[in-house]
């Protein structure tokens, strides 16, 4: 068993990167991810890793450096947040479209304007369609575990895609909590040796990256990108099974909590899922059949598997820590997509919560569950989308 420590989410992810020892990392500071790469840069400085750290002048350059290094044939990582991810936007598509397995912890933070440094999922949700694999972590342990698994998943020879490992800004990134580290040798062994595919630095076999493809084959190229995404769930589960053998900690495409016999379900991601579980226990003690589903993998989204897990419930509340103005929350849209395949469709409501770091308090979870109880009884939904935890 590894060492048990009290660390922040950022510290845990930096430790994972140290243990993995990537060939190249690029870094540009942005709150609340700054502390993660700052810690990693100390490892570089202290000779704890062999990584070549490229200190760049912007996040656009950070992702560009990662793309170059990955295409050259290296194992590559970086980390960012919010505006940093937004500035990377153009390069995110290029990383995925070029099939480069870059691993990036994303410390979820709100987007400007107005300027706000606190946690919500607006940044990650904005990158939903970039072609990156996305994981969302409930706590520091999951952020650490997901980072290690991400290297195996992204670098898998059937996949070769970049992976974002998300955790809630400040709530997880800056909270100290108990984390169980894996032994260095076990992490090293688990992620294995990096296998370069078509490296630019193989000078005997010259290649070209970033070609122009017009109406002749672009359409097919994009279909191929979708096809590779369909192979991701199996790899994620295989890697999780191996990870469980090593650590005893089990991961799936999503997590269910007291859902098997539930009549109602709350669907929520990241740290808010932890708080919700505590409240679910209180309602369960009173005999209320309520359960939870916490998506871990948001891209690709496991529609079929989630539909099967939710098919027996009468009412679902989907909690989004991001919004699509003039539309439903992004997680709600995915869950309705999953529900589409069900024979009998549950009643559904969408709650937008916690934007810009607004605390998600137990009473908010209680209000949501109380409303679900009413909806399950009557089958009537008054308002589909609502903001909760709003100051009046």
């Amino acid at each position, binding site marked *: 068993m590894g060492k048990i420590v009290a660390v922040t989410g950022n510290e845990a992810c930096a430790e994972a990167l140290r243990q993995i020892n990537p060939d190249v990392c690029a870094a540009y500071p942005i709150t609340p991810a700054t502390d993660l790469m700052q810690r990693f840069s100390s490892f570089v400085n202290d000779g704890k890793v062999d990584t070549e750290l490229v200190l760049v002048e912007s996040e656009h350059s950070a992702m560009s450096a990662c793309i170059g290094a990955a295409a050259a044939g290296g194992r590559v990582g970086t980390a960012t947040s919010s505006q940093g991810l937004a500035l990377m936007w153009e390069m995110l598509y290029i990383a995925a479209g070029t099939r480069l397995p870059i691993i990036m912890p994303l410390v979820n933070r709100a987007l400007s304007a107005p300027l706000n440094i*606190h946690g919500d999922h607006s940044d990650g949700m904005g990158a939903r369609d970039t072609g990156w694999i996305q994981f969302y972590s409930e706590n520091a342990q999951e952020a650490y575990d997901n980072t290690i698994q991400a290297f195996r998943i992204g670098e898998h020879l059937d996949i070769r895609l970049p992976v974002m490992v998300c955790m809630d800004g*400040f709530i997880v990134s800056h*909270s*100290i*909590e*108990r984390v169980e580290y894996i032994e260095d040798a076990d992490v090293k062994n688990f992620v294995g040796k990096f296998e370069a595919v078509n490296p630019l630095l193989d000078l005997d076999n010259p290649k070209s990256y970033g070609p122009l493809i017009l109406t002749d084959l672009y359409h097919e190229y994009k279909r191929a990108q979708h096809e590779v995404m369909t192979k991701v769930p199996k790899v994620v589960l295989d890697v999780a099974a191996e990870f469980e053998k090593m650590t005893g900690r089990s991961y799936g495409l999503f997590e269910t909590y007291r859902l098997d016999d539930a009549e109602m379900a709350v669907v929520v991601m990241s740290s808010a899922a*932890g708080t919700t579980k*505590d409240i679910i226990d209180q309602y369960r003690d009173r005999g209320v059949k309520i359960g939870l589903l916490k998506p871990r993998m948001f891209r690709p989204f496991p529609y079929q598997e989630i539909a099967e897990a939710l098919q027996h419930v009468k009412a679902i509340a989907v909690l989004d820590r991001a919004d699509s103005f003039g539309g439903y929350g992004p997680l709600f849209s995915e869950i309705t997509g999953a529900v589409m395949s069900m024979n009998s469709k549950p009643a559904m409501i969408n709650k937008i919560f916690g934007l810009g770091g607004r605390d998600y*308090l*137990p009473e908010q979870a209680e209000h949501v569950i109380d409303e679900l109880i009413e909806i399950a009884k009557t089958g009537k939904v008054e308002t589909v989308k609502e903001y909760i935890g709003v100051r009046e």
Partner: protein
Amino acid sequence: MTKAIEIRWHGRGGQGTVTAAKVLADACLSGGGYVQAFPEYGPERAGAPIRAFNRISDNVIRMYGPVLHPKVISIADATLMDAVNVTEGAPDDAIYVVNTSKDPKEVRAKLKAKDSQKVFAVDATKIALDSFGRPLPNSSMLGAICKATSVVDMDVLLENVKKSFGKKFAQKIIDGNLDATRRGYEEVKEG
């Protein structure tokens, strides 16, 4: 919900309140428990009122967000009793630990504490000045909290104070802080 001891710290920016919450988390972790330690993030200015939180439990802690009903309320600067609502959400069995030169009975009256609530007073700043010459009350507050709440074993706490200060400071400062922790433990008074 799992049974957890929840602590709210009131301090002023620069006093080492957040460090104290971290050291307590480390100490409770080495005692075998699950822990959380986190400050409330706002504009960080020296002297501004700040809050920090701990959750300590034998079981996995899943709850995120501020502690709303702290069993233990640590007030590292007595002037905060006039500046912020330090009694907010305090349950009937709350334990207050206040850094003050005043008598704990006076503090009890000031807080309007209920009979079922405990009030402890310790002159943590004076102890700090005696022990290492700087008005940073966190080590003596930790000792006082240890005595008032038994949340952690004193030897384990001392070990973690040593570890925490050992990373950054000279032996003299480490010894001073260990001394301050011990004196906080010994000199805290209930009233």
